[in-house]
């Protein structure tokens, strides 16, 4: 069933250990209303961040809280760690990769100090998005507690 056909399903792994939630419940309207793309989110219980897909790191924001990864077949994935975390200006994040690096799904990308988010009242919600949702259909969602870098957060098919 996983032949090189148009209906092939692709997996996006949970980037962190934690509970899977739907995008609609993320505490930021830019994500909840899918303005930045479609996908799902995880509410992490610790700070280890893993790559949800295999591909190339296209960009990491200077504030270290958002990662753009382009898969080997050209699909752009945005990983945004926490809500309002742009305001930490990089504090609390330790990033292990750089733009241009090739990563495999499950590789460790970074670590974040979640206590700092708590201190600043920032929700932990961490969305993973397909940034050009018009080209894809999300086919399945992971539910319950997921292991970062190994359990599937969602799967998609090309339209």
């Amino acid at each position: 069933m996983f032949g090189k056909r148009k209906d092939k399903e692709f997996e996006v792994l949970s980037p962190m250990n934690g509970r899977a939630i739907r995008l609609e419940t993320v505490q930021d309207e830019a994500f909840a209303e899918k303005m930045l793309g479609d996908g799902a989110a995880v509410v992490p219980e610790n700070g280890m961040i893993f790559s949800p897909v295999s591909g190339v790191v296209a960009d990491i924001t200077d504030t270290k809280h958002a990662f753009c990864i382009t898969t080997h077949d050209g699909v752009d994935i945005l990983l945004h760690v926490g809500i309002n975390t742009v305001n930490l200006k990089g504090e609390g994040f330790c990033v292990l990769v750089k733009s241009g690096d090739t990563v495999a799904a499950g590789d460790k990308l970074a670590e974040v100090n979640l206590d700092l988010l708590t201190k600043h009242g920032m929700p932990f919600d961490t969305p993973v998005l397909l940034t050009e949702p018009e080209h894809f259909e999300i086919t399945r969602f992971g539910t319950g507690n997921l292991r970062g870098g190994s359990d599937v957060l969602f799967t998609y098919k090309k339209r």
Partner: protein
Amino acid sequence: MIQFSYTVKDGAGIHARPAGALIKLVRDSKSRVTVKKDGKEADAAKIFTLMALGVKCGDTVIVEIEGEDEEMMAANLKTYMQENL
């Protein structure tokens, strides 16, 4: 084609939340919108290219709008940026 420049006042620059609404505006329009900074340019309908510009507070960007609703879009974008960025 309509062009205007804008200096970002948001302390965090062009980040996810304002970018999301900006992208939605652009995708709902019939025009192509390009944001330029320091010789680099981004398709304003794509979060990846926008984020790669790395626009920070105090940076001046040039916004170019081209398409059949460019006048309306230029006005909408200016208002949006003044209120949100």
